[in-house]
């Protein structure tokens, strides 16, 4: 009865099927096959990636929980721990942007509060196609509204993130959602099903037919049938999740439960089998007891449903009534649907019959890991050359105006003001700063977070792209005075069965590994999203790094905006003759090629340490990292973000191509402004760090003025540049 067609529908190979039969000692029935298809999908099993992910450094003295759980956990002192993770919701967000993005937020929030942490911040890394296409605008409009609709309602602030635009995302937008929570160190909970006889409770929303095969959908390419996939996307209910959040934290606070797991991708299947597997136990449930929203659902459908806002709890036997009382207070069902056993099996009953009876271990742990073939992509050699080099523009003002109208560079307020970024009253820096900064109430501390990932770098040099993503996120933290303590990553790639995609993946991992080792920061988890291909076209490899930093004195921070006229402008780090892979080449010259900027991790580290030291000594008025758009855009942003729109005049001395000097994206550079009296102490501090400090010029006036050895290169009114930068994205949406 299980034929090739059925296997194909379940995204399982014949070899995998034979292995399943061998492992469970029988031919699976349809429901059992469905369970394997979910748990052995790329999304759940990491079968193509796990060999490579093992290389990432995961150790650290403050690590409480590394990869493998719902989220990573790091000790931050004072009895507190930070719980954080990033996850993708790319495929659903393309099919149905609002609900896809909204349920992405809902899913990552559950990952955090499942562990006993109250979520205090959301951030998003978004990638869209160019906004001149109506379809891309519709996707972006829906995704942003979906994130806002869910996060705003549940009351967790969306405090920042990043948005990039590139052709490769036109049919494959990326929605990566990061969430961070705070837990008391001695009240952390795990997905455990311990104690044979303990009751298994189902809490939250009723089960419907939504999202069946969501995880397998996320593990295949989209073809022309993508419209048919729409019913696979789940629908979110942030109000229900808010109740679930409060009720779950309450039963945890009262110490009433043994273990808890959210029902995200792969729903009831994943939560039951993982909880049992983690504890070496078994679980037996009765589907007739599962609250259902629709009539006539089959066991297959109930087990595979991805209805949102549901959790599975193993309660302490003697505390069940107390658990149910808490859920009743929040108007939620908490139904006993089964019990923990000690036989290592997942047993599912329905209608008086046993419909599933399989060992848990093969389902969760024995999916084969693949070392898929890899090969250097053919595009790489020709595209990494910058020969012939593009001509140097005659009018730099025009080039600058053009660059400011690149949506990747222009202001994202249109996005951020749709998010409630202030609820919970911890937001110490508004979106748009280098990093988000959250004070921790009743302490003097703060946590900083930065998300980063330049996919053009990763496309042209995957290893450098991986390294730079880590380095830049850490640099962003250093610009607000924070030191990195942990990393989560979301790795978005095309089809791993293509050798060149696998090669990109391996190299990105190597780059991330090298940088994390240099910064001595552990990777505590994350997510891999393969099969980001539509109609045969793969996205650029897009590693998104989420780095969490710590700031021990919340008052010792700064922001990118200029604070007053007459401050001295200095550059930490060095300008280099590098143009390749820049936003300037991409947007002004329409060339996506060249050598990716070189990065020396020991220099990078020194620059960041200097910046942190200078901020902690109160020497800096502002600090901003030089990234897309180069030095000219970096300085302009400091002007645009200042309340009085303070201009600047600088005179650069470097002997390099002038467009590389203005717009090149050499790494390890931070632009700072200092009061005159703080300059000498800063110079000395730089000397102690064995770094040179270049004086660029001064803040002041109402124009953006850049000279090169006394000759004027750029001179535009601040407000003129500001209006281009500010209005670009709102104007794009007015085209509708």
């Amino acid at each position, binding site marked *: 009865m299980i034929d090739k067609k059925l296997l194909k529908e379940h995204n399982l190979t014949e070899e995998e099927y034979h292995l399943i039969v061998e492992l469970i000692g029988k031919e699976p029935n349809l429901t059992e096959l469905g369970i394997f298809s979910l748990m052995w999908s790329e999304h759940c099993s990491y079968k193509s990636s796990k060999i490579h992910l093992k290389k990432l450094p995961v150790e650290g003295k403050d690590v409480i929980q590394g990869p493998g759980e719902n989220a990573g956990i790091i000790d931050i002192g004072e009895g507190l721990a930070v719980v954080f993770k990033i996850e993708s919701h790319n495929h659903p967000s393309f099919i149905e942007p609002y609900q896809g993005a909204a349920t992405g937020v809902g899913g990552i929030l559950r990952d955090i509060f499942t562990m006993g942490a109250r979520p205090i911040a959301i951030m998003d890394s978004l990638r869209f196609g160019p906004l001149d296409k109506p379809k891309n605008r519709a996707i972006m409009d829906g995704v942003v509204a979906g994130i806002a609709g869910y996060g705003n309602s549940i009351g967790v602030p969306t405090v920042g993130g990043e948005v990039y635009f590139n052709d490769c995302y036109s049919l494959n937008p990326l929605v990566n959602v990061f969430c961070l929570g705070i837990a008391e160190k001695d009240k952390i909970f795990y997905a455990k099903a311990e104690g044979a006889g303990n009751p298994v409770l189902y809490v939250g929303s009723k089960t419907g037919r939504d999202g069946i095969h969501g995880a397998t959908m996320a593990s295949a390419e989209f073809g022309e049938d993508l419209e048919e996939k729409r019913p696979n996307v789940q629908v979110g209910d942030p109000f229900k999740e808010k109740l679930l959040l409060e009720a779950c934290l309450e039963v945890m606070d009262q110490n009433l439960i043994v273990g808890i797991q959210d029902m995200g991708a792969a729903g009831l299947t994943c939560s039951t089998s993982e909880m049992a597997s983690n504890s070496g136990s078994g679980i037996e449930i009765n589907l007739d007891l599962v609250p259902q929203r629709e009539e006539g659902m089959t066991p297959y459908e109930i087990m595979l449903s991805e209805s949102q806002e549901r959790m599975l709890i193993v309660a302490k036997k003697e505390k069940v009534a107390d658990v149910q009382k808490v859920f009743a207070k929040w108007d939620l069902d908490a139904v006993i649907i089964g019990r923990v056993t000690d036989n290592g099996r997942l047993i599912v009953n329905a209608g008086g019959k046993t419909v599933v009876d399989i060992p848990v271990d093969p389902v969760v742990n024995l999916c084969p890991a693949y070392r898929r073939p890899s090969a250097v992509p053919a595009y790489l050699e020709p595209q990494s050359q910058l020969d012939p080099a593009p001509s140097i523009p005659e009018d730099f003002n025009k080039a600058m105006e053009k660059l400011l109208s690149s949506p990747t560079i222009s202001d994202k307020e249109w996005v951020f*003001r*749709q998010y409630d970024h202030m609820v919970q009253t911890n937001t110490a820096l508004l979106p748009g700063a280098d990093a988000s900064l959250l004070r921790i109430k009743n302490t003097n501390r703060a946590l900083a977070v930065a998300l980063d990932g330049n996919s053009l770098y990763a496309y042209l040099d995957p290893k450098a792209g991986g390294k730079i993503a880590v380095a830049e996120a850490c640099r962003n933290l250093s610009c607000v005075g924070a030191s990195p303590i942990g990393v989560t990553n979301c790795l978005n790639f095309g089809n791993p069965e293509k050798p060149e995609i696998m090669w990109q993946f391996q190299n990105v991992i190597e780059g991330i590994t090298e940088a994390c080792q240099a910064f001595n920061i552990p990777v505590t988890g994350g997510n891999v999203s393969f099969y980001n291909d539509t109609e045969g076209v793969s996205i650029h490899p897009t590693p998104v790094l989420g780095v969490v930093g710590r700031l021990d004195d919340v008052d010792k921070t700064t922001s990118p905006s200029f604070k007053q006229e007459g401050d001295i402008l200095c550059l930490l780090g060095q300008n280099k003759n590098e143009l390749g892979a820049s936003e300037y080449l991409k947007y002004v010259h329409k060339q996506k090629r060249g050598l990716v900027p070189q990065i020396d991790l020991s220099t990078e580290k020194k620059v960041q340490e200097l910046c942190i030291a200078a901020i902690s000594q109160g020497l800096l008025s502002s600090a901003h990292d030089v990234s897309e758009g180069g030095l000219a855009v970096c300085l302009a942003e400091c002007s645009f973000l200042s309340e009085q729109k303070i201009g600047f005049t600088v005179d650069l001395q470097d002997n390099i191509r002038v467009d590389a000097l203005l717009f090149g994206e050499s790494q390890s550079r931070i632009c700072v402004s200092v009061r005159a009296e703080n300059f000498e102490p800063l110079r000395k501090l730089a000397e102690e760090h064995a770094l040179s400090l270049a004086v660029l010029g001064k803040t002041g006036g109402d124009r953006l003025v850049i000279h090169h050895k006394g000759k004027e290169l750029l001179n535009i009114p601040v407000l003129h540049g500001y209006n281009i930068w500010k209005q670009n994205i709102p104007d794009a949406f007015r085209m509708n």
Partner: protein
Amino acid sequence: MKFGVVIFPGSNCDYDTYFVLKDVFDQETTFLWHKEHSLHDVDCVVLPGGFSYGDYLRSGAIAKFSPLMQEVKEFADKGGLVLGICNGFQVLLELELLPGAMTRNKNLKFLCQHVHLRTENTHTPFTNRARKGDVIKIPIAHFDGNYFVEPETLHTIKQNDQIIFRYSEPNGHLSERANVNGSMHNIAGLINTGGNVLGMMPHPERASEAILGSKDGRIIFESIIHWLR
């Protein structure tokens, strides 16, 4: 003096408001659960921001049927101080403790940003520490803050000096640009005829500490504390 912060299912500024009253202003403060029938002898009830009942039918529409709201209504009728912030304002409109209604923001998007408010009436328990014409910088965060009321009622509330805050430029000038959500007559905050029930869309609890970028919201809490003392 005792403050009570109401928790509806879906309230999400309840802890923020509690924190400001308790930890920033050092006032005795208690939570009031929506299913209860007692206000626990508080002197001022705060209806916090959030999405009570998910705002699913209409913002604030279901919250008005909470058991506790009957108590709040009686408390207000007797002259007790009630402050509704954001969703709390929407609930006060649904309860008809204040006139008018909220529609979607004029740009049809959720808006979270700092705005400037011009203080119009300082003879109230909520603004007595301010001066008329003072401009304060406070954040808003809402989808439905576009205040609407029929012209006759607008005329009455103007005559009664019931408009407490209006969206303005930083210099106090009233403009369409400053009126970000499109509210009629730039109305951001409104008091009842008894002068004891204030509803406002902006969030003073988000502007009561320097670290959050503005302390201008403190004037409202300081006024209440001064009034009750």
